[in-house]
């Protein structure tokens, strides 16, 4: 069977692909975190007030994805029960060892920011609630019921500081994932200093895209009209970041082609064979070309809001796919060719099983469940709550 799966020669230990669908999902989810957080920071730090309608949503989306960003890794580890070794005995010569601390730091940071942003809501809930609910909100407020104007002004400033710290942290969180791949000299498909930047850009792009899609869905469910100014701004950001992202991706490829090093022949074979569909067709042609043009139209041309939103939604969905394909092509693609540069192997995720498609789908759905539950505890949408919040 293994003979059927492989072409050419591989080292005998390379026939099986070690980093599975879960490792594709992991950078995808962290990317969404980083992107969503950047959007919330555009409002909190850079004062893009038109983004206010999605400011809370984006922050909570970042948090929900962050909660599940590490689960694919746990499902992949040979010994998930030893996962904390990465924080107990981290060895900082490894790009991966930063994960535990960066991740925890960032999780705490986002939690704190959420706390400050939602504090007035929590306090209001604690005041109007009864019995157990009251106690719950009281604990959430850490027993401090101070929502005076001074306290809120202070909260506002802390939020800004946290969001400001959060931007570089989000960049580190995702840039590090890129570095993890980009720093492996053993793999010519990964080893490029551009990798962290590409990961970062595609992260921002995917984060904005999922916010747009999520915003539409929520508005549909709630039966409210989406905020046009907010959406227009999101489209513009999406377009801008996507142009940078795509340029870098193409630049990386161009450099490889042009330099034509020893490894290029196997990469050319890879791209024209195993990755023909997922890279060449999906990532580079369909899911890049179409959104690039559509978003350009959406941003530059005056058009009917309905049409604009349709085009914007289609572009966002395609970009979500593009980024997923990019993660797939990096993670899986990098393992499909032999380090002897003489052969290719295959990978198809199983449906069931610990690292299968079903598990990936469940893990990817969980953040949305978290968002739903969060919304029940603390309403995400401004019109649902006493208009007290200025953050």
């Amino acid at each position, binding site marked *: 069977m293994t003979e059927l799966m492989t072409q050419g020669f591989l080292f005998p230990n390379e*026939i099986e692909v070690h980093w599975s669908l879960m490792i594709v999902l992991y950078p995808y989810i962290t990317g969404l975190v980083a992107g969503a957080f950047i959007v919330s920071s555009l409002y909190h730090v850079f004062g893009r007030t038109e983004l206010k309608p999605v400011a809370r949503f984006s922050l909570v989306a970042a948090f929900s994805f962050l909660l599940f960003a590490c689960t694919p890794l746990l499902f992949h580890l*040979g010994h998930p029960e030893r996962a904390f*070794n*990465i924080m107990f005995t981290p*060895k900082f010569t*490894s790009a991966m*060892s930063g*994960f535990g601390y960066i991740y925890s730091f960032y999780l705490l940071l986002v939690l704190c920011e959420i706390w400050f942003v939602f504090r007035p809501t929590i306090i209001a809930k604690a005041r109007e609630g009864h019995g157990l609910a009251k106690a719950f909100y009281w604990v959430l407020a850490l027993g401090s019921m101070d929502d005076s104007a001074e306290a809120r002004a202070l909260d506002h400033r802390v939020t800004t500081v946290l969001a400001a710290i959060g931007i570089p942290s989000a960049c580190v969180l995702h840039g590090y994932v890129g570095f993890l791949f980009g720093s492996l*000299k053993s793999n010519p498909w990964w080893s490029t200093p551009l990798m962290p930047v590409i990961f970062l850009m595609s992260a921002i792009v995917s984060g904005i895209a999922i916010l747009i899609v999520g915003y539409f869905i929520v508005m549909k469910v709630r039966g409210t009209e989406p905020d046009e100014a907010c959406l227009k701004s999101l489209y513009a950001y999406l377009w801008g970041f996507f142009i940078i992202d795509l340029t870098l991706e193409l630049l990386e490829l161009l450099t490889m082609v042009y330099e034509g090093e020893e490894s290029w022949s196997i990469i050319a074979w890879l791209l024209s064979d195993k990755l023909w569909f997922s890279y060449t067709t999906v990532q580079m042609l369909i899911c890049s070309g179409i959104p690039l043009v559509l978003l350009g139209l959406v941003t530059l041309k005056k058009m009917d809001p309905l049409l604009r939103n349709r085009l914007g939604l289609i572009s966002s969905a395609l970009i979500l796919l593009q980024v997923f394909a990019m993660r797939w092509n990096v993670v899986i693609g990098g393992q499909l060719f032999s380090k002897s540069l003489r052969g290719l192997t295959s990978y198809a995720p199983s449906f069931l099983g610990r690292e299968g498609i079903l598990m990936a789908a469940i893990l990817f759905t969980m953040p949305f469940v978290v968002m739903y539950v969060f919304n029940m505890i603390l309403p995400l949408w401004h019109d649902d709550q006493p208009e007290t919040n200025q953050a």
Partner: protein
Amino acid sequence: MDNERRQFLKQACWTLLGGGLMVSGALSIPGRAHASGGRQHLYVFLVDTNRCIGCGKCVAACRKENNVPQESYRTWIERYAIGNDGTVHVDSPHGGEHGFKPLPNAADIARSFFVPKLCNHCKQPNCVQVCPVGATYVSKEGFVLVDERQCVGCGYCIQACPYGARYMHAVRHTADKCTWCYHRVMKGMQPACVLVCPVGARMFGRIDDQRSPLYAVMKQEKLQVLKPETGNEPMVHYRGLDKEVR
């Protein structure tokens, strides 16, 4: 008022940061005592590609000695057959464990030879560099080893090894690889693959041991290593390595 608050915030931040750093500093940077660690790289493994007959006894013996799971290889043999037209055919059926079959178009072959492979126990091993939890390390004697009780099974080292020498142990779910038979060598024995090699294609010993057959070869022969460009400084030396071998 405002200033006061800012002051307070600042102080709170610094206290938190400083405290955290101090605690982590105290706990996480042990081993300052002897910084060099007295690590030596005196052991060398020598592969003579001119001698190997591709019988696969080494692969089988390694599996038995180290209880290597099926489909995983701590050592394996590759066969290169370079055609008259320059085409390169490489094969390694079951890592060469059951020997090799004759090739169909033997007349078109310009040169062909076997190349045994194993962990290179590099001086600058990037598998050790990338291990996030300190589960793989270089022993005092220069052997690159894996601590199966510490390994989390992330597979990063497997990706990092330029030689494909590492695999995920199917039973232990930790990274695993050739140890140069550390347990044997430390008892004064030869690695199992060296012991069973019928033609002396594998040699092992200390560079400073004049009784070792390796000593003479190291002195007289021109030697090569695999992928020197990685900067890993492999300690498996090859005699008669062809340019096609990667």
